């Protein structure tokens, strides 16, 4: 049996794997390595240095990037919180309300943003905001981010929710808890790993978004990805590589956290 499932038996397995890994990760490694380059060239190695990291925080472009980073964080945190709350309520309704009219439609609507090409959403959002005469830069970005973060927050939360039998709420209500208390004292704590996981995922998706942000942002309002893009248009400098590497590290930390929280939640559930 073991030999049947041994991946190495598939012809070309090793080659395909190496090609995929190189294509996926070589650019990231190049960027990360060259962010420590002492030279101003992005192709020639001039020795190891932290100069470009210093430049990010103190250089001529520092105020611009600082403001962009603050905007990104504010939007990501706010959007992730809002999307998580909405996704939590949605997953409770989808798994606890039994069968209701339009359940399938609701599910389709929740997951639609995952399927629709992002550029379509971006154009549609821009058209919508223009049509209602709403052009305040940060708020438009925030609203758009909340909307596209909902399905990403919904996925881990509803996965968690589906693994919680309604027996626990029944037991709570049998023990004199009102439906509200049963939700607050029993269901919510059990959902917490899924909720945290969903929050982190939404946060990282929002932090990372360029396309929709670029369409709906007002004049002069930048987030980190749009600021980077703006800067790159005037030629790539190694300070961009330093910023990208910092963002990569933040992303990896958050995604790992999300995964770890999801895993411990599952372990606990399997034990009981």
């Amino acid at each position, binding site marked *: 049996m073991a030999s049947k499932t041994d991946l190495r038996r598939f012809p070309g397995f090793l080659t395909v794997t190496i090609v995929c890994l190189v294509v996926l990760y070589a650019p990231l490694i190049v960027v990360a390595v060259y962010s420590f380059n002492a030279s101003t060239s992005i192709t020639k190695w001039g020795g190891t240095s932290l100069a470009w990291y210093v430049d990010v925080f103190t250089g001529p472009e520092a105020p611009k990037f600082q403001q962009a980073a603050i905007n990104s964080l504010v939007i990501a945190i706010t959007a992730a919180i809002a999307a998580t709350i909405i996704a939590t309520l949605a997953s409770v309704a989808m798994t606890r309300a039994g069968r209701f009219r339009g359940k399938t439609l609701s599910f389709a609507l929740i997951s639609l943003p995952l399927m629709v090409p992002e550029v379509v959403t971006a154009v549609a959002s821009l058209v919508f905001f223009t049509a209602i005469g709403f052009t305040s830069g940060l708020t438009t970005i925030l609203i758009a981010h909340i909307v596209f973060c909902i399905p990403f927050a919904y996925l881990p939360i509803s996965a968690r929710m589906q693994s919680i039998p309604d027996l626990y709420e029944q*037991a709570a209500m049998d023990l004199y808890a009102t439906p509200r208390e049963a939700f607050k004292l029993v269901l919510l704590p059990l959902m917490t790993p899924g909720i945290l996981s969903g929050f982190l995922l939404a946060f990282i998706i929002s932090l990372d978004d360029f396309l929709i942000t670029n369409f709906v942002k007002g004049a002069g309002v930048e987030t980190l990805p749009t600021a980077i893009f703006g800067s790159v248009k005037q030629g790539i400098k190694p300070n961009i590589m330093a910023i990208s590497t910092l963002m990569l590290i933040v992303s990896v930390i958050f995604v790992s956290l999300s995964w770890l929280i999801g895993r411990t939640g599952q372990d*606990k559930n399997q034990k009981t």
Partner: protein
Amino acid sequence: MTSAEIAVDIENVVKRYGSFTALHGVSLSICENEFFTLLGPSGCGKTTLLRSIAGFEEVSSGTIRLKGEDITGLPPHKRPVNTVFQQYALFPHMTVTDNVMFGMLRSGWSKTDAAQRANQVLEMVQLGGFAARKPAQLSGGQQQRVALARALAPRPAVLLLDEPLSALDLKLRQAVRVELKSLQRETGIAFIFVTHDQEEALTMSDRIAVMSNGEVQQIGAPPDIYESPVNRFVADFIGETNLLDVDVHSVSDGMATLSLPGGHGFTCPAAAMRGAGKGHLSVRPERIALCAEGAGDLDATVTGRVYLGTDIQLHVRLADDEAMTVRLQNSETTIVPEEGSAVGLKLEVGAARLLAD
């Protein structure tokens, strides 16, 4: 039974799920301080009835009264009854103490009173040292006790138990049976126990309601149910029995005269039979004695012997090919006939039960 002694009164309860009827007008009364068992195969409606008492199912019609008060329309959290769930449903994120205190804190106990009562109940189920543990750190048997403690702690008017022993292994199950019974005596409240295990029902209950197809077939004390089943279902479901097709010739003074397969005449209490006709005679395997061929009520050939430890089970076949089982006690004086030998079977008159077709 005066109404003051009745803990739960169920009157004509009907439960429909779409076109399926789970309960066909069930009526029964459970007394204070009674260990009452709802017994039946899966799908008989016993769990639906229990969940209707707890408030998890809305009944389609009928009335459920708790100590004389109509609770039919109340939501679960307003009914002073607690449930021990089949899968225990302990809150995994809370300690044992927090689990036990949950019900008390929701129903207006003070924190100190609740903590004191939690200690007391945990001592009662012999889990005094486990208060700070999480449910995942307990064995199945311990979790079951916590579930019991949690349900008993707020002093419910009635305790509902939904097959709470089915997840335990056999040895533990037998020990917990005895404990459950003494716990019920100690607390003095009515227990309503749901099970499909007839042995569990017979050993613990004061009274048993045997259910099938959403109807109560018979209510009675364990000996009544076992020795005087009212119909074929009850006779067959509770314990082992032999059901013989018989012709009833006449009924008079409560005694029926009938002929057994093979032509021998037999007289026994008429029970539900009112006149001549086809009937079924239920005879428990342990209520049949062996004798010489021709000397008993039936003649049979031994087709197999099964050694069961305390008993020896004898499979026999009558002349008309009907199979029967006989149980012989395993003792030195018991003579076990060889396979293929012809034997006579003597039925105990008082133990044979005549059932209508």
